[in-house]
């Protein structure tokens, strides 16, 4: 036996420190890669969650309920304090913008300005340009800070409480002032007055009106304002008119901001509008019964168009003048807000910048409402003393109360988005100045007392309308095209055609939109008849050509290889289209008097916009075709060949095989293609932005435009104030779009994954 030979491998040392270090480094690198790749993968989910969560985060405050709590300061909650001033009753309370200084006006004409949190008196000013005692008080509006006092001697003091803001040493200092904008002499009311029981006052650009009640007689005084060009002082001249007697006693008088309407409120729920357009001949309108009970309080909503009437059951109803078809106005009850406690709505205070109001109900509880949204945002019990006066701060975030124990308290109100409710977003709303409830989207206007109209319904409708017309064009063209490409077309041709049509998917939609808006829209308007002729005649022409081709001599037919028929059709369709143009002119001359577009407008009475749904349908259909085409083609092409071969072998014609075997198998895929196309059409922005007039109307008319959710976001988002209700509603629109496409895409993807598994097993 030979001596065993042992090999030693001194070079292969695996456990040297260097090798061990290298292994550690390698392992570390490996783990690092695994970790970072894992993070990268999961971050895709995080990204989509982030989009969803962020949109939700911006939208949620819309649906948060409001709250009220005692005003907080660094030193803690602000306690109630004794009201500043004498024992005389309060006529009016007002708070300034910054929630620092408030004013209390009492029946003796003393204005007390005080710190709103502590009640500490800052200044006391006597108001009134007449020595005579104050008989009545009338407010112009909270927002204008202008009010009038009627004195027992038949004179009128117009005064304004004003707050000057200065920043000495970078600290805000608010100095209250009392101004007399129309001079330091009292204005004379009608000499016929013997006393003033009630007063209504309204200031305007050119004139002022005051209506005083003396027993049962109403006296109107119109003051005209004339600016002296040299001294720039305002000179006032006045005229007095006696108004007709009302059929009921009067508890309260109100004048509308345009000074045309006087509203007289009777104790038994009567509400009478008086038309003062011609003060010589005032028109007494029919008295409406605002409530079956007694009227407890009445106030104007912001803007002075709507009257809010609170009754002894706590129900507040909103009324405004509606013009009927014969141009007559009548007072209409728009909506009512039920009280919660069945106790009188003793005070109504409107918000100064929104169409909202606060109601003091049954003594010590307050409720916040929004008129447009028709919702009660908050109802709360504030202590046990009965509320006698209250006012809401200009930003609607502070509420100052005075109770019957002569104490005052200040409350913080969190009520950011009262104008949003389900009914405001999705239901018909009766807006001020409208004849009937409507769906309207109008988010901004030039005036401050504008009623924002946030109905998403016309936008959602516009979105679906645009998508519908686009799908109407795209679905048949794309699916039919995909069927032919996948099933009948010669493979060589297919390899060229498919990428060519798919190239269209990459085409920026801004280009399609621009062509649709600047080229297609005028073209369609010009040749409306041609478009319809083409839509009608081209399919017929194709069939006629196909039949003629089948009767053509074999020698000719065999020139075209199998699966190239579509190429043959290209010149046919081009020629047909060109032939349709002169033909359409004849048709137009024959049927529509030479011009179809004028015919539609004049004879049929259908309004016609140049940028309309037809144009959008054509352009957006064009954009959606490649999406649907590509996915459908894949679905049909991936149907296993042995299925169709089997069918053909059993004697079915190619069309039978396609329609009975291939299409049913591929149908889930086609369905998912249509869904994805639909998702794209719904979210498409640029085409609709450029090819429609962007008017938010609800009309199925194919010749009118629309505004879609996406286009609306693009138009309004840059101008929207961050954090406002408008801003959040736009986020809501984005969230709606996101969720819609999310559902559609997830569904489509699930179907596709199922399909893939099914084919895998075949």
């Amino acid at each position: 036996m030979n001596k065993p030979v042992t090999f030693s491998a001194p070079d292969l040392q695996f456990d040297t420190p260097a090798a061990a270090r290298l292994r550690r480094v390698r392992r570390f690198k490996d783990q690092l890669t695994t970790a970072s790749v894992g993070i990268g993968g999961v971050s895709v989910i995080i990204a989509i969650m982030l989009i969803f969560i962020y949109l939700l985060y911006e939208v949620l405050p819309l649906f948060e309920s409001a709250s009220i709590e005692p005003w907080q300061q660094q030193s803690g909650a602000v306690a109630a304090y004794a009201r500043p001033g004498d024992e005389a009753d309060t006529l009016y309370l007002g708070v300034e913008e910054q929630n620092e200084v408030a004013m209390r006006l009492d029946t003796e004409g003393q204005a007390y300005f005080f710190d709103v949190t502590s009640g500490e008196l800052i200044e006391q000013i006597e108001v009134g340009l007449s020595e005579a005692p104050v008989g009545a008080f009338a407010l112009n509006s909270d927002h204008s800070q202008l009010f009038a006092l009627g004195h027992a001697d038949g004179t009128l003091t117009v005064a304004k409480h004003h707050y000057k803001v200065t920043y000495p040493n970078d600290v805000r200092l608010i100095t209250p002032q009392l101004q007399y904008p129309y001079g330091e002499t009292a204005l004379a009311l009608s000499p016929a007055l013997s006393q003033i029981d009630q007063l209504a006052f309204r200031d305007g650009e050119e004139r002022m009106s005051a209506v005083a009640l003396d027993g049962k007689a109403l006296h109107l005084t119109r003051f005209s304002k004339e600016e002296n060009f040299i001294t720039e002082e305002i000179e006032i001249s006045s005229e007095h008119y006696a108004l007709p007697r009302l059929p009921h006693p009067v508890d309260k008088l109100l004048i509308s901001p345009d000074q045309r309407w006087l509203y007289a409120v009777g104790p038994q729920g009567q509400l009478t509008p008086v038309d003062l357009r011609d003060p010589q001949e005032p028109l007494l309108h029919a008295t409406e019964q605002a409530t079956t009970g007694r009227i407890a309080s009445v106030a104007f909503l912001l803007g002075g168009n709507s009257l809010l009437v609170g009754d002894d059951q706590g129900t507040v109803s909103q009324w405004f003048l509606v013009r009927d078809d014969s141009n007559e106005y009548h007072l209409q009850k728009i909506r009512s807000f039920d009280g919660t406690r069945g106790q009188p709505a003793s005070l109504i205070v409107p918000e100064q910048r929104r169409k909202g109001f606060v109601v003091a109900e049954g003594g010590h509880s307050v409720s916040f409402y929004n008129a447009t949204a028709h919702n009660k945002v908050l109802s709360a019990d504030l202590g046990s003393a009965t509320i006698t006066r209250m006012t809401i701060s200009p930003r609607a975030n502070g509420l100052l109360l005075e109770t019957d124990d002569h104490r005052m308290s200040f409350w913080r109100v969190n009520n950011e988005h009262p104008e949003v409710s389900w009914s405001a977003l999705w239901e018909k709303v009766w807006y001020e100045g409208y004849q009937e409830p409507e769906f309207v989207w109008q988010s901004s206007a030039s005036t401050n007392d504008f009623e924002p109209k946030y109905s998403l319904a016309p936008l959602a409708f516009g979105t679906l309308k645009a998508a519908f017309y686009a799908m109407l064009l795209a679905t048949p063209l794309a699916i039919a095209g995909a069927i032919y490409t996948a099933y009948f077309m010669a493979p060589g041709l297919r390899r060229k055609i498919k990428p060519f049509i798919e190239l269209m998917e990459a085409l920026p939609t801004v280009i399609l939109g621009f062509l649709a808006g600047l080229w297609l829209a005028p073209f369609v308007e010009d040749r409306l008849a041609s478009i319809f002729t083409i839509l009608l005649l081209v399919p017929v022409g194709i069939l006629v050509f196909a039949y003629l081709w089948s009767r053509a001599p074999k020698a000719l037919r065999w020139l075209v290889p199998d699966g190239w028929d579509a190429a043959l059709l290209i010149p046919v369709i081009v020629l047909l289209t060109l032939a349709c143009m002169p033909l359409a002119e004849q048709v137009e001359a024959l049927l529509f008097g030479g011009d179809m577009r004028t015919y539609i407008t004049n004879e049929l009475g259908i309004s016609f916009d140049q940028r309309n749904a037809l144009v959008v349908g054509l352009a957006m259909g064009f954009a959606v075709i490649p999406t649907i085409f590509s996915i459908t083609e894949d679905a049909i092409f991936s149907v296993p060949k042995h299925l169709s071969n089997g069918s053909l072998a059993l004697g079915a014609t190619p069309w039978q095989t396609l329609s009975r075997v291939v299409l049913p198998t591929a149908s889930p895929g086609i369905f998912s293609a249509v869904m994805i196309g639909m998702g794209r059409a719904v979210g498409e922005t640029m085409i609709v932005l450029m090819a429609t007039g962007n008017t938010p109307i609800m009309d199925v008319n194919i010749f009118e435009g629309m505004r879609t959710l996406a286009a609306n976001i693009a138009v309004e988002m840059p101008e929207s104030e961050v954090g406002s209700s408008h801003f959040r509603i736009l986020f809501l629109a984005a969230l709606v779009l996101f969720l819609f496409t999310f559902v559609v895409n997830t569904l489509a993807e699930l179907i596709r994954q199922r399909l893939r598994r099914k084919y895998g097993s075949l």
Partner: protein
Amino acid sequence: MNTSFNDWFRSGAPWVWLTGGAVAINVIMVAGLLILIAWRGLGHFWPADILQAHYQVPNSEAVRVIGEVADTERVPAEQLRQAGVPVPEGTETMARHLLKVGNRDVTGLDFQWALKDNLEEVQYPERLFAAERREWGNFYGYLRGLKQDGEEVARFDPATDDDADYEQLWNDFLQRVERALSIHEQIKTIEKGDIGAINYELERLRLKERRHELDGDLTPQVQADIQSQRDELNRRYEGLQGELTELYRAFNRDHYLAEVANGREMEIAVSHVVRAYRPNAMGMVDKAGHYLSKLWEFLSDEPREANTEGGVFPAIFGTVMMVLLMSIMVTPFGVIAAVYLREYARQGPLTRLIRIAVNNLAGVPSIVYGVFGLGFFIYFLGGTIDPLFFPEALPSPTFGTPGLMWASLTLALLTVPVVIVATEEGLARIPRAVREGSLALGATKAETLWKVVLPMASPAMMTGVILAVARAAGEVAPLMLVGVVKLAPSLPLDTNYPYIHLDQKFMHLGFHIYDVGFQSPNVEAARPLVYATALLLVVVIALLNLTAVAIRNRLREKYKALEH
């Protein structure tokens, strides 16, 4: 084998033909669209002949019109009659030209409709010239004289002088235009370059001072230092200002006298002229030269006259910058996600969830990304960054306002599914054997990934990035919310520190189309330029897509070879 119609119908052949027709229609639509854009976009730069004619509306005096034929259409005679235009009886439709008559400073309108039948004595005189100007649009007319410093230095009298004299005057005029253009170039260099840099430095000094003030270490030492720098800059500024005054005086030296359509003689500063040419006297070669120079101007110059004239260079530059930044952000993220899905994750519910998420990301409307970008990136992130890092610039926001970085980030999010899908496809095509071979030789998973898988998949990643770039280049809706403007005062990349300005707003080709085509005060005049811009965008995107497709196809071939 002639069959009866019924048999033919029952065989299903009509349906097959109809589906074939659908393909044909799709192809015609795509091709027609591309041809339309190409035709309109390329045609714009070709110098059109200038027509001169007597416009004779029946029952009124004839007027001379001069202009280019911009468009011709047929209108129903009825419509004209309703508009009060005298139309001969018995005609159904009439042709009318849209004439670009220019001279907005004379007539107030660039365009005028003219019925073809009413144009008499139509001719194309060689002496007519067109001048593109910096304001008031194009000028059309006859050159009549030249003035230098208010003194007339040359005169052409059509009654006595001949063509040679006109040529001489014309050449003199062209020289003066050339001179004014070169001075304008110098002025621009000083104004935009030097003075722009000084202004930028001054602003930085102000911010520096404010920063020190906020930090509470604004010592007299620092203050004096800043003041001396500021004085230096102001001194340089004054020097340049003097230089500019000189240049402007030279710039405004010359005026030309020209006769316009209504016979009036106008005196117009030569400094306003950007380009002057006589299309009727140009041969094919001249026209081709003119065409190329216009094309070059379009690609390389800045826009003029509220974006309706001139070039689109800032928009090209902005698009490229944005797309580059976006690619830098999207590539690693997309590739890592794809590698995770294909190489690392166990195929199960989580990967299915991620795939659905990817698909959803791809399907979310782009405007939603814009809203998200505006809210989250700009107001939330930007609003947080500003007080932390740029307190000195407050209250004017630095990153809390739409800008280049947020736009790129938003589009990166939007295009990430494209990169993921393309990369995943590439990874899936790499044969298993290759990976297993690498692992069998002792490489770790990371090493296999870095040294074997990723290099092989790099063309696929490339495809993904190219497709993402193509998508981003054409996307407009989200950009409108996150940083695109109609006219950016400066490019986001320049010689001022820190050279690349991520907080700046920028211009973008797609938005340019929207803005010029729909928000411009003079849509009719801007239309050709919009077509040209659209063509440029289509060409860029089509090229990018075709490149991506070509790479993908080559890749498929390559791996097919590997598998055998």
